């Protein structure tokens, strides 16, 4: 693509297209975002990408807002806005038309089948997301341990996940990680 000269166009193209392929939501799209931002366009380093993942999990709102962070680092406030709209717009439009269509046709069988078929795909994608971020963030045994403990706690208890993020941040701050 010759869009390197115009970063805004590159953002629109990258995230607009990704929007329509993001099966299973924002966290499933992490590998593709990583591929686009780090490997293809070299907008971010590995470390920056992991940081932005961390910030997006820390801040309120839908997790898709990691694209706001990526957009900002590419082209400032305009980039943040453009990336967010590009990532949310096409799929929102699609959702609007599909829901109107289904309201009229009332055949609820196909959504159920497609949804059931997409479940294993989105789980596989999310697992890949975890692996890709972990390869950057979990560089020491203690880091791996933090990940495992956070996973176990979030899986087995009802503790608010925000506490685990803050605990991870504190350990990092203290220089343990």
């Amino acid at each position: 693509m010759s869009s390197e000269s115009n970063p805004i166009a590159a953002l629109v193209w990258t995230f607009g297209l990704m929007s329509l392929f993001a099966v299973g939501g924002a966290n499933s799209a992490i590998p593709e975002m990583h591929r686009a931002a780090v490997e293809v366009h070299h907008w971010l380093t590995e470390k920056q990408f992991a940081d932005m993942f961390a910030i997006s999990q820390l801040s309120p709102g839908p997790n898709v807002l990691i694209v706001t962070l990526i957009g900002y680092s590419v082209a400032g406030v305009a980039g943040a806005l453009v990336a967010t709209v590009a990532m949310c717009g096409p799929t929102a439009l699609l959702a609007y038309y599909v829901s109107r269509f289904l309201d009229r046709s009332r055949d609820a069988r196909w959504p159920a089948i497609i949804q059931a078929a997409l479940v294993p795909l989105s789980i596989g994608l999310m697992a890949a997301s975890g692996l890709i971020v972990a390869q950057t963030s979990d560089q020491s045994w203690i880091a791996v341990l933090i990940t495992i403990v956070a996973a176990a706690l979030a899986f087995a208890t009802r503790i608010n996940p925000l506490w685990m993020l803050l605990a991870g941040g504190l350990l990092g701050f203290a220089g343990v990680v």
Partner: protein
Amino acid sequence: MPPESPPAAAPAPDASAPSPAHQPGLLELFLAFARMSLAGFGGVLVWARRSIVEQHGWMTAEEFNETFALCHFLPGPNIVNLSVVFGSRFRGIAGGLAAFAGLVGPPMVIATILAALYARYGDIDVLRRTLAGVACAAVGLLFAVVLKMMMPLLKRRDVTGLVILSAVFVAIGLIRWPLQIVLLVAVPLSIATTVLARRMVKA
């Protein structure tokens, strides 16, 4: 960077009991979605359900499940789809836009501020270390979601589902193939096996 405290915690339950027939207006849609979005750390869905079903009574639990199922099977961020579908059901396109703007607008402003702070101070060592720690925990949370979602497949002994899951994981996570190519193969394959499996159950 020290994480900013949430602007508003749990929305206070409204004293005036909402009637099920109550149709939310545009501003009401915007504010409701803004509030659930800002309260939603690591996922807005829980708050969306609480607000739409329990607090406002705009939908029954069943209607909410159906709407969410639809939004889950469509591509893109589920909760964003939900806001548009939900808002437009009450107030047409304007309603969809109002709910969407409420959901994405305010947290986007926060994210932009955080991004600006990161661009400016991201190189400071303390901040780098702190964020690295947060990232470790965040990855753990992601793996927990993966495990939780896998449990039904494991309980059902859904072998084809688990094979497809692993294949996607290897193709995207290890080999790093582009998403579009993997989906182009995996989506039809998965739909075909799902249809086949349902036929076999019926037969």
